[in-house]
């Protein structure tokens, strides 16, 4: 497992806001850059998105594949299950 930086860039839309808040909460080592209409989150080594944390914030059932609707770009190898979406360099 390398410590090389991974990132995810998301559109700053209503639904993605809950995702961004969940990422910030679950990844204290991450750095958040807020641009107009885009939020880019960098982290050394690893970045994870948990379905449960997003659902807590969005107030409804949330499918991890909804992430694609607001995804601009990402870097890292993806490990995706129904419950978590993890970025890391293997």
């Amino acid at each position: 497992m390398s410590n090389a930086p991974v990132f995810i860039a998301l559109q700053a839309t209503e639904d993605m806001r809950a995702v961004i808040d969940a990422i910030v909460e679950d990844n204290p080592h991450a750095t958040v850059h807020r641009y107009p209409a885009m939020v880019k989150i960098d982290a050394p080594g690893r970045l994870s998105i948990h379905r449960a944390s997003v659902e807590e914030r969005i107030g409804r059932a949330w499918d991890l594949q909804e992430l694609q609707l607001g995804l601009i770009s990402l870097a890292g190898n993806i490990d995706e299950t129904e419950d978590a979406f993890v970025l890391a360099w293997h």
Partner: protein
Amino acid sequence: MQIDIRTDSSVSPIRQTFAHIARRLGADKPATRYQEAMFDLQPVTSFHYRPLWQPQYELYDARRTRVVMQDWYALKDPRQYFYGAYVNARARQQDAMEKNFEFVEKRGLLGALPADVRDVLITGVVPLRHLEWAANMNNAAITAYGFGSAITQAAMFHTMDRLGIAQYLTRLGLVIGDKEAVEQAKTAWMEDMTWQPLRHASEDLLVRDDWFELHVAQNLVLDGLVYPLVYQQFDRYRSATNPAFSLVTDFMAVWYAESTRWVDATVKTAAQESPENAAVIAGFAFEWLDRFTHALRPLSLRLFGSDGEAELASAVDALNKRLSGLGLTRQSESGDHHE
């Protein structure tokens, strides 16, 4: 690997949200649509005239209930429904229900039922549409007399939901036996002894003044008995022989699970605010629990026959557990209502 992805950050918005939302959040940061469409929409000061029909109160007045809150905007909706989110969610559910009705009608699944099943559905379930109308009125009253747009906006959505459910029940009647079935259900509601205790209790509730009592009695206690009894227990009972009933009442089952989150969150927050609130709310809850348990007995016997007592008892047990989970205890058993 280095990818530099950025947008032109020399343009930054002057403010992230409205000033009154920023005061709520404690900083000028992006707010959710729900927060922007919910917080502080209702005026609280500088009212002009008092209402002629209730001169002891202002137009919007927190004293219309015995429940006291430091901040009425603590009663947030965990579903985060504002108009757009609510309408989209219900439109999707409506599409699914239309498909279900189409499926049932095309195959005539409810058109040619055995006489006993047909009778229990027409005189045991379809009359619930009148009970839904009472629920619609009660929630309209919560919307009208409640305090703070957090609870009143969610209550308005709840009001419309009840109208929709009443319409689905009417359609159930129409599918089973056309207009005559719906008329027969109305006659049952007005005259059949199965329904009279429930009609009496719900009419007594309609004229109560305290809007939080309406919320507790209708949305927590009455729905907390009727929905599990009819749309869960009776549904299981029926689906063994004819699953069509599950199809045309699917919305009610899903809606109950969803709206329970709102009801529980608001009641629990208000009860946790103070021991006085917990005592007032427990008073509402257990008074109406006793009344509605009694009122639902004939209906339960009608729906489940000899299993009626046991089925009702299991619904009451489940509701008792739910009430105690919300921090509500019977007054006579204990003078102490702390969490």
